[in-house]
C-alpha cells in the first residue's frame, strides 16, 4: 500500500488551494500605497550607436515623474558573469560590461536604453513611446550569424572584442592529441552537424519587479520574479548599485514558473530600486509578453559538429565535438558555464567511451542574451550524443538498443571517472533501458507500425538514453572551474513553543511544490504531522541564505541542509530530554516523535521538549541554552547523476510532413523519491518542453536581428493537443551515495532526455518509408519534414 505520510508519500500539494482559488500572490498582484509605474524604452534596432536619447518632450507629459537613461548608470557597476572561463590557450574570457540601461550602443532588439516612471501605466507607456520617437540611434549592421560574427572583426558587438568571441574552450585540452589519435586509427567514424535550436523559456508569469525605498531607515526592498532571491540581492547590492547588503531585502513571492529564465539578475530590478529611492515611492514594472520575448534570457542555440569513432560492432572509441554557442549581446549570469561545464563534462554520456574532446567557441551576437534553460547544457550534450549514435547505427546496420546496451557503464564500475572529468557515483543504465523497453512494448512495435501503415501513416520509434550532472554543486570543485560563488545551500529549522515548526529554506519554489515536499521530509524526521510544518522561502529577510532553485538542486542540496538542521534539533532535543528526564544525554533515543531513556518507559514527546525549550524552568544555563532553533549549511561532495532511457513513438504523415507523438515512455533513475506525484509531474513538464523543442519551438531572428517569433502567434508553444499522455516510471532507483536523502533530482530530466528520442523516432519513421534522410534539424516542423521527403 502506498505511503500516505512523510517521505515517499504522494501528499497533495498544500500550495494548490491558494492557486486554485485565485489567492496566490504573485509580484504583479501586489498593490502598494503611492505606487508608480515604470515602462522601459527598448531598442527597435539590433545594433546601433546612440546619438541622443530624446527625453525632453516626454519629461513634460502628464504624469511623468522621472526619466532614466544609460547616462544615469554609467558610473555604477555592471551585471556580472557568474563564471570566469579561460580559453584553451589559458587567456581569460572577455567580459563586457552589462549596464542597467544601454549606454553608447544598443546591442539587441529589446535592449533597454531608457525608462520612464509615471503616475499611471498608460502615462508611462505614452511617454516611453515619445522617447522612442525622439531618440536618434545610428543603425549599424547587425551581427546575427555566429560564423559570420567570428569571421568579421570589422563589425563588433562590443567594440573592445575584435572577433566577437567570448572564449575558445577545450575540454580536456591535454587529452586532445589522444582523442585525435583514436579517430585516426578508428575502423569507423560517423560525423553529424546539427543545430540545437534557440528557445524562449516562456514561464507563463512574465517577469515583474517592484522597488521600494524607506527614507526613514535607508532600507530598500525588491519584490521580484526570481528563482534565487539571495543571488539577486548579492548582485544588486555588491556588484551593481553598491547598496549595503544588509539594507536590501529581496522577496520572490509566488513565482509563475522559471525554467532558468528567472535565475538571473536583470537591469529592470536595479532600475526600480534606483527609481524608488529617487522618488521615495514604490516603483513597479511588469513585462508585457512581447518584452519577455525580447529581453528574457533565451536558451540553447548551439551549432555543433560531433564525430563518433567506433569499431564495426559499434563499440565506442571516441567522441569529438566542435560547438559554437551563442551568448547573445551580453553575458547573462550563467551564460559562460552553460555551454562549457554543464555541457562538455556530460559528453561521455552513460557510456564507457575512453576518449572525449569538446571544443566550444562562445560568440557574441546582436540578439537577446542566452543562458541556462531547463537542462542547461546537458540537453545539448545528450542531443548531440544520441543523434550521432543513431546515425552510426544506421550506417553500420546495428540495432540502436543493443549498441547502447553494449556501451553502457556497468554497475560494478562505480564510482567511475569519465574522460571529461566527472565522477559518477552510482547508476544502473541497463535497468532503465530494460524498463523503458518493457513499458514501450518494443516487441509489439512491428504490429503497431503495420496498423499505422494501414491508416496511411509512417510509424517510427526513437530511443534516447541520458545522464545529467545536477544537485548543483560542490563549491570546491566549481571554484576551481571558475565560479564566482559557492553553490551550497542553507536552512533554518525553528521549533515554536507549541511544537509546530517553521523551516526557512534557501531553495525557491516556483512550481516545484517545496512547501509540500520539504514539509513531508521534516515531518517524518521529527515524527510530527505534516500540517505542523511550515516551509518559508523566497525572502532574504526571513531565510538564512540560499542559492535558489535550478539545476535540479533543491532537494539534493537544500533538502539535505534542512535534514542536517533537523539532526541538530534532535541533538539539542536530546540534551533537553536528558535534563528533564534526569538521565545521561547518551542514554536518550529519539524515535517516532518521542525522546526516551533507552531501556525504560521514561519519555517526553517532541511537543513537551519544544515547550520546555521556551519555558526553561530550572535549566542548567551554563550547559543548556533555552530555545530550539538550528541552522545548517550543506555543500555537496559531488554532483548527483540521474539517468534514464526514453522511448518515443511518432506517426508521420508523408503528405503533409506533420509529426504526431503517439506514445512517450520514460524510465528514470532519480535515486530515492520523496513525493512520487510531484516527480511524475516534473517529468511530464520536462517532456512537454522537450517535445516543444523537438517539433515546434523556433526562435528566429532575421538578418537584421529582428525577432520574427516574438509572440505566441509566431512562436509555437506546445499546447494540449500537441502532446500525448506520458508513461512515466521511476522504479529503477540507485540512491545517491553522497547525500543522506539519497536523492538525485528530477526537474530537468524530461527536457534533457526527450528531444533526441523524438527526432530519432521521426527519422526511423521516414526510413521505414524509404526516405533515406540522415538528419533534420529541430524543430522538426511539417515544412522541414516535407522538404526532406520531397527534396
Amino acid at each position, binding site marked *: 500500500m502506498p505511503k500516505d505520510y512523510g517521505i515517499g508519500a504522494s501528499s497533495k500539494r498544500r500550495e494548490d488551494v491558494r492557486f486554485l482559488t485565485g489567492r496566490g500572490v504573485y509580484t504583479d498582484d501586489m498593490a502598494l500605497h503611492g505606487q508608480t509605474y515604470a515602462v522601459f524604452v527598448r531598442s527597435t534596432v539590433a545594433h546601433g550607436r546612440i546619438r541622443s536619447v530624446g527625453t525632453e518632450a516626454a519629461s513634460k507629459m502628464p504624469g511623468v515623474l522621472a526619466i532614466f537613461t544609460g547616462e544615469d548608470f554609467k558610473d555604477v557597476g555592471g551585471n556580472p558573469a557568474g563564471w570566469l572561463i579561460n580559453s584553451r590557450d589559458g587567456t581569460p574570457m572577455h567580459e563586457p560590461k552589462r549596464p542597467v540601461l544601454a549606454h553608447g550602443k544598443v546591442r539587441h532588439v529589446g535592449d533597454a536604453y531608457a525608462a520612464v516612471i509615471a503616475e499611471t501605466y498608460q502615462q508611462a507607456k505614452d511617454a516611453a513611446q515619445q522617447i522612442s520617437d525622439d531618440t536618434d540611434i545610428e543603425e549599424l549592421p547587425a551581427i546575427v550569424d555566429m560564423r559570420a560574427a567570428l569571421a568579421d572583426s570589422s563589425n563588433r558587438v562590443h567594440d573592445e572584442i575584435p572577433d566577437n568571441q567570448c572564449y575558445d574552450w577545450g575540454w580536456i585540452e591535454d587529452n586532445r592529441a589522444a582523442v585525435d589519435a583514436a579517430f585516426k586509427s578508428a575502423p569507423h567514424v560517423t560525423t553529424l552537424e546539427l543545430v540545437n535550436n534557440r528557445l524562449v523559456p516562456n514561464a507563463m508569469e*512574465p517577469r515583474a519587479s517592484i522597488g521600494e525605498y524607506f527614507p526613514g531607515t535607508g532600507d530598500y526592498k525588491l519584490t521580484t520574479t526570481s528563482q534565487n532571491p539571495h543571488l539577486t540581492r548579492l548582485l544588486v547590492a555588491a556588484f551593481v548599485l553598491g547598496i549595503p547588503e544588509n539594507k536590501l531585502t529581496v522577496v520572490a513571492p509566488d513565482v509563475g*514558473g522559471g525554467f532558468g529564465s528567472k535565475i538571473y539578475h536583470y537591469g529592470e530590478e536595479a532600475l526600480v530600486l534606483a527609481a524608488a529611492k529617487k522618488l521615495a515611492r514604490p516603483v513597479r514594472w511588469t513585462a508585457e509578453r512581447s518584452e519577455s520575448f525580447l529581453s528574457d534570457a533565451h536558451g540553447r542555440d548551439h551549432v555543433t559538429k560531433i564525430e563518433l569513432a567506433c569499431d564495426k560492432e559499434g563499440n565506442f572509441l571516441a567522441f569529438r565535438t566542435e560547438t559554437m554557442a551563442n551568448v547573445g549581446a551580453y553575458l547573462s549570469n550563467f551564460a559562460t558555464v552553460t555551454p562549457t561545464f554543464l555541457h562538455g563534462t556530460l559528453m561521455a554520456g552513460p557510456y564507457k567511451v575512453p576518449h572525449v574532446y569538446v571544443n566550444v567557441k562562445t560568440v557574441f551576437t546582436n540578439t537577446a542574451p542566452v543562458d541556462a534553460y531547463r537542462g542547461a547544457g546537458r540537453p545539448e550534450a545528450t542531443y548531440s550524443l544520441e543523434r550521432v549514435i543513431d546515425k552510426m547505427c544506421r550506417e553500420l546496420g546495428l540495432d540502436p538498443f543493443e549498441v547502447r546496451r553494449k556501451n553502457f557503464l556497468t554497475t560494478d564500475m562505480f564510482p567511475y571517472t569519465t574522460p571529461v572529468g566527472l565522477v559518477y557515483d552510482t547508476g544502473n543504465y541497463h535497468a532503465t533501458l530494460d524498463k523503458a523497453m518493457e513499458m514501450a512494448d518494443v516487441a509489439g512495435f512491428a504490429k503497431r507500425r503495420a496498423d499505422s501503415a494501414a491508416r496511411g501513416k509512417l510509424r517510427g520509434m526513437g530511443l534516447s538514453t541520458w545522464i545529467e550532472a545536477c544537485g548543483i554543486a560542490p563549491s570546491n570543485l566549481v571554484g576551481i572551474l571558475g565560479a564566482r560563488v559557492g553553490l551550497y545551500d542553507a536552512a533554518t529549522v525553528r521549533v515554536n513553543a507549541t511544537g509546530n515548526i517553521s523551516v526557512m529554506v534557501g531553495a525557491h519554489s516556483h512550481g516545484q511544490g517545496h512547501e509540500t515536499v520539504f514539509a513531508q521530509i521534516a515531518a517524518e524526521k521529527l515524527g510530527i504531522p505534516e500540517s505542523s510544518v511550515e516551509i518559508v522561502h523566497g525572502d532574504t529577510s526571513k531565510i538564512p541564505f540560499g542559492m535558489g532553485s535550478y539545476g535540479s538542486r533543491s532537494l539534493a542540496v537544500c533538502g539535505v541542509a534542512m535534514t542536517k538542521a533537523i539532526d541538530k534539533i534532535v541533538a539539542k532535543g536530546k540534551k533537553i530530554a536528558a535534563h528533564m528526564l534526569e538521565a545521561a544525554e547518551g542514554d536518550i533515543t529519539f524515535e517516532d516523535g518521542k525522546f526516551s531513556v533507552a531501556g525504560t518507559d521514561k519519555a517526553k514527546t517532541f511537543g513537551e521538549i519544544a515547550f520546555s525549550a521556551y519555558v526553561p524552568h530550572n535549566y542548567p544555563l551554563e550547559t543548556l541554552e533555552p530555545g530550539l532553533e538550528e541552522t545548517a549549511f550543506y555543500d555537496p561532495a559531488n554532483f548527483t547523476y540521474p539517468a534514464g532511457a526514453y522511448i518515443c513513438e511518432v506517426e508521420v504523415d508523408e503528405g503533409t510532413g506533420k509529426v504526431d507523438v503517439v506514445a512517450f515512455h520514460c524510465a528514470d533513475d532519480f535515486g530515492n523519491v520523496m513525493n512520487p506525484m510531484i516527480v511524475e509531474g516534473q517529468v511530464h513538464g520536462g517532456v512537454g518542453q522537450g517535445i516543444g523543442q523537438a517539433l515546434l519551438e523556433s526562435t528566429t531572428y532575421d538578418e537584421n536581428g529582428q525577432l520574427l517569433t516574438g509572440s505566441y502567434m509566431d512562436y509555437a508553444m506546445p499546447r*494540449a493537443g500537441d502532446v500525448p499522455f506520458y508513461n512515466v516510471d521511476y522504479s529503477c532507483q540507485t540512491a545517491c551515495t553522497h547525500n543522506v536523502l539519497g536523492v538525485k533530482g528530477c526537474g530537468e530530466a524530461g527536457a534533457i532526455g526527450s528531444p533526441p528520442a523524438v527526432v530519432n523516432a521521426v527519422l526511423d519513421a521516414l526510413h521505414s518509408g524509404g526516405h533515406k534522410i540522415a538528419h533534420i534539424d529541430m524543430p522538426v516542423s511539417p515544412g522541414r519534414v516535407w522538404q526532406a521527403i520531397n527534396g
Partner: protein
Amino acid sequence: MTQVSMTVNGKPVSGEVEGRTLLVQFLREGLGLTGTHVGCDTSQCGACVVHVDGKPVKSCTVFAQDVAGSSVKTIEGMANADGSLGTLQQAFQDHHGLQCGFCTPGMVMSSAALLADNPNPTEAEVRHHLEGNICRCTGYHNIVKAVLTASGQPVAAE
C-alpha cells in the same frame, strides 16, 4: 471615464473606467480580484479566462464597459459556498494538474466551461478545447486527467 456596473461572482459591483480599460484590468486593479492573470498580450495564453454570462471569455480582449450589466464569474467565485474546493478544482489538486499556478485560473475557468457544454468530453475533446490555454509546467498530462476525472469518467493514463 464611464461608470460601469456588473455582477461579479454574484455580487453587484461598479466602478469608473476609461474606454480602453480592459475587463481584466477592471477585475485586477479596480476590484482587486487578482486571481485572473495576464500572461500575454495577444489573446493566446488563456491565463485571463473568466465567464461572462456563462461563456468563457479572455478578459484581456474585452473592454470593461462592453460587459456592463453582465454577470461575470472569476476563479475567486469557483469554490463551494462553504469555501471548500469545487469538484473541478479538487480534481486539479488530486491529480496534480498545476505546478506554478499561474495558468491555473484560466485552465479551471476554461475547463469548467467545457464541462458545462459537454459533460462527458473525450480526451481529444479536452485537448482541443484547451488549445487556447497555455501551460508551461505540466506538459498538460495532469490537466487533461483532472478534467476527465471531474467529468466522472475513468481515465486511462497513469
